């Protein structure tokens, strides 16, 4: 530690509190891969924070990548923090202990930048709570020059307007390169003493970095309840903020030292990202829209990251992550390498996002020789018509082929994910979900004594920067009615279990998903009334959100349920994920026409803007679609509705069982 640097270790004050709280190991750090960086007056320090519990936040790959990249710089230091659970928070507030890093238990307020990953809108109140626990004013306008900068990144930042009041800067897109640029500028400002009156100038400079959005540099005008314009306050601040995109994933083989926690977390396994981006074009899927184009990691690099990662961590399970891992053109080589690598012993490989076809099941069978318990598929909608609307071009043939292949190879349980409340959805479409579930169980009976299918249904929440951004979300009552429809239809059906997401949570998510800056007061209201950990059913309260809207004179109908028109200024129109607005509008029209689009990785370009706008291209190793590619790649889509396998006829309603 360089002399003269004030740094505080909160551990001695925290330690006596830990025997009094649940799961104290989440506050100790001590992970394999943890870094103990040196801080100093010339060192720019980042506190990467996940605004939910350690168990949820630790595995977050984005934060781990940035943590390593920053700590590789001699002039920068990175540590991590997570939202303390309510029991510890109460004790911290009682004793005046601020939010701390888990690496060296340094107070959050001593960092130059506190950067949050935002993966879910319902964590917004936790963001505010963490800033407050850090001892930093929650409103960016109230912060003093020397206060930490509050930064956010992650998928939610494609509409950061609801949290614009609370953050100083927003990063759009891939973080690997842009954090270096931010570190340079903040470092210079820090070395110059963070003098009074210089914060505004720093923020203005930051706003010129590609991929950085500084909400306070923009003026928002309203025309009645509608947005009129969001315009820069200075001529050198960009009118439209473009996301940052890393051209070649092969240049960024991170994390090199994945953190291995000492206590249980979600996704407690090695994770290797095989590609970023997806061009399947599912219209409901924000991740697929905002991460274009497709950039694959070289297969040999993937294989090396797997074998080195397993040896270093001691994990016996690796997950190949992406938005659709079976689409990775190097999948067969990576599978062969991993399976033949005797040095790593008893290893299982997880494919978290299975494509729905028999080829994918074949790969899964090869990978999961030992533990064959359950497989998960996401057909997303119950009828071919509905799947054309959402552009999830899975034919029934693909689904039944995948399911039959899985049952015949020893799997006993399937999980099928669906959305309800999609545009143009009729009750026939909704009931199609039950039908698919029933048919899958029926297929399973040929191979298994008691096959089981879990049908999991979530209420659709339209997301910014997607073709469905104009769609009025189904009301909570309507979503509940559809869930009831399915419950009634599946009552007494052997082998099919129905699970559904809380429709009230979909409503709260809808409030924040497409909101504007007026939502800041709503989020603050919910936070001030104890509404933290809204992702947790035991703490979630939809009434609090509705009360907060009403208290601020805002209308749930206007924010959530109404369809937007083509000429409406959307709160995120000044932010760009590379997609042209007219492409998105055309895709929305195509959806209503029930027109599916093939994957542009291997077929002609639809000029969405993601490649051309940034001068980069899809990075795929193969010019042809991978074997068995469904979802509209080189298959005849006119047969989508056909059912090619023999199935039991559906029992007439009321026939009982």
């Amino acid at each position, binding site marked *: 530690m360089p002399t003269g640097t004030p740094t505080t270790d909160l551990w001695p004050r925290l330690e006596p509190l830990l025997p009094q709280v649940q799961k104290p190991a989440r506050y100790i750090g001590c992970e394999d891969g943890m870094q103990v960086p040196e801080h100093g007056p010339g060192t720019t320090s980042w506190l990467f924070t996940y605004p939910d519990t350690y168990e949820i936040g630790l595995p977050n790959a984005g934060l781990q990548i940035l943590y390593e990249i920053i700590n590789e710089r001699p002039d920068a230091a990175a540590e991590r923090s997570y939202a303390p659970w309510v029991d510890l928070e109460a004790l911290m507030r009682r004793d005046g202990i601020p939010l701390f890093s888990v690496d060296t238990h340094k107070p959050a307020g001593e960092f130059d930048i506190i950067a949050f990953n935002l993966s879910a809108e319902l964590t917004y109140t936790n963001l505010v709570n963490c800033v407050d626990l850090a001892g930093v004013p929650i409103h960016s306008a109230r912060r003093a020059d020397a206060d930490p900068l509050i930064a956010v990144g992650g998928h939610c930042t494609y509409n950061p307007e609801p949290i614009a009041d609370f953050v100083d800067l927003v990063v759009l897109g891939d973080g690997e390169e842009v954090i270096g640029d931010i570190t340079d500028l903040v470092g210079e400002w820090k070395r110059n003493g963070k003098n009074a009156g210089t914060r505004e100038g720093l923020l203005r400079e930051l706003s010129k970095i590609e991929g950085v959005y500084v909400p306070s540099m923009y003026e928002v005008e309203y025309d009645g309840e509608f947005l009129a314009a969001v315009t820069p306050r200075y001529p050198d601040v960009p009118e439209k903020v473009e996301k940052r995109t890393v051209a070649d994933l092969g240049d960024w083989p991170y994390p090199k030292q994945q953190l291995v926690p*000492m206590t*249980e977390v979600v996704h407690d396994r090695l994770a290797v990202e095989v590609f970023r981006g997806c061009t399947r074009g599912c219209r409901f899927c924000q991740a697929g829209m905002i991460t274009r184009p497709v950039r694959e990691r070289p297969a040999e690099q993937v294989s090396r990251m797997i074998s080195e990662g397993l040896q*270093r961590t001691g*994990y016996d399970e690796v997950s190949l992550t992406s938005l659709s891992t079976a689409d990775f053109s190097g999948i067969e080589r990576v599978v062969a390498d991993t399976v033949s690598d005797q040095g790593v012993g008893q290893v299982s490989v997880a494919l978290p996002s299975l494509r729905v076809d028999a080829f994918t099941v074949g790969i899964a069978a090869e990978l999961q020789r030992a*533990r064959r318990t359950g497989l998960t598929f996401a057909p997303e909608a119950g009828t071919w018509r509905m799947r054309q609307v959402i552009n999830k071009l899975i034919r029934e043939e693909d689904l039944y082929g995948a399911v039959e292949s899985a049952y015949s190879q020893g799997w006993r349980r399937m999980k099928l994910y669906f959305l309800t409340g999609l545009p143009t959805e009729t009750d026939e479409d909704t009931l199609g979900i039950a039908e698919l579930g029933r048919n899958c169980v029926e297929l399973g009976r040929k191979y298994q004594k008691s096959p089981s299918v879990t049908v999991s249904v979530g209420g659709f929440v339209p997301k910014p920067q997607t073709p469905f951004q104009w769609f009025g979300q189904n009301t909570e009552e309507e979503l509940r009615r559809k869930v009831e429809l399915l419950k009634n239809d599946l009552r007494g059906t052997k082998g099919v279990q129905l699970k559904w997401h809380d429709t009230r949570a979909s409503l709260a998510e809808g409030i924040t998903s497409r909101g504007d800056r007026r939502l800041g007061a709503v989020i603050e209201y919910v936070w001030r009334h104890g509404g933290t950990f809204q992702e947790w059913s035991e703490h979630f309260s939809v009434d609090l959100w509705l009360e907060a809207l009403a208290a601020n004179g805002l209308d749930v109908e206007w924010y959530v349920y109404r369809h937007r028109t083509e000429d409406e200024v959307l709160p995120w129109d000044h932010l760009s994920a590379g997609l042209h607005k007219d492409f998105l509008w055309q895709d929305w029209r195509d959806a209503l026409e029930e027109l599916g689009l093939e994957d542009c990785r291997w077929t002609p370009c639809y000029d969405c803007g993601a490649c051309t706008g940034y001068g980069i291209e899809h990075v795929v190793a193969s010019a042809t679609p991978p074997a068995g590619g469904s979802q509209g790649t080189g298959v005849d889509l006119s047969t989508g509705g056909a059912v090619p396998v023999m199935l039991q006829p559906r029992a007439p309603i009321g026939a009982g069982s």
Partner: protein
Amino acid sequence: MRLRIAFSKHGKIRFTSHRDVARIWERALRRTNLPVAYSEGFTPRPKLSFGLALSTGHESEGEYLDVDLDPEQAADLDLDGLASHLTAQLPAGMTATGVVVVDRRMPSLQQAVTSCTWQIDILGVDESTAQAAVDGALAAEELIVTRERKGKQVTDDLRPLVLSLDVDQPIEDGVRLIAELGTQPRAVRVSELLSAFDPPLDEQCVLGSRVLRLHQWIITDDGQRIDPMSVDAAASAPVGVS
């Protein structure tokens, strides 16, 4: 072939649970490339067997686990230096302090261990108060505690399991007790002992206490009290045969 590994647990890592420690060992053993034997079946698990659970938050000088190795691959295994290789793969605060080969026919650690010696540092209590509590507990005919088990209130008498109890040297702001507590038919928790004192030590004292397991003991058939690492010597079983 079965290895018995002794290890200690100190500092921040003491806040990990028994299950956490099991996972930490599974990963450490894989990284050491020890030829650990796996169970058969759909979900092969490494054959590890842990001794008595250590409560989350307690430290220890005497933790043990048994590891079954694949006999063929383990034939040339060099035990020298293995403890330090293992320590290098463990998190800060956990140290492998010894490795011996034990006979696989020996009873498991859970069955074999009969008592543990504990060092209990209690803050905010003076020596005379502590001495009175200890004297009272030792003089009592029974020490009744009530606990919940499967939704029912169960009462137990701890007195037969309190094998020794002394007030040790004073520490800053408190006292240190040394206790040997029995583990059969069930292990007495340190917190139970403190709550069974008359009057019970108040909650703040218990929360502020720092507990260290000094030893685990096995009483042999001939009444000797031995360390779990010396079972083979006590039983004169040939070393290295399994």
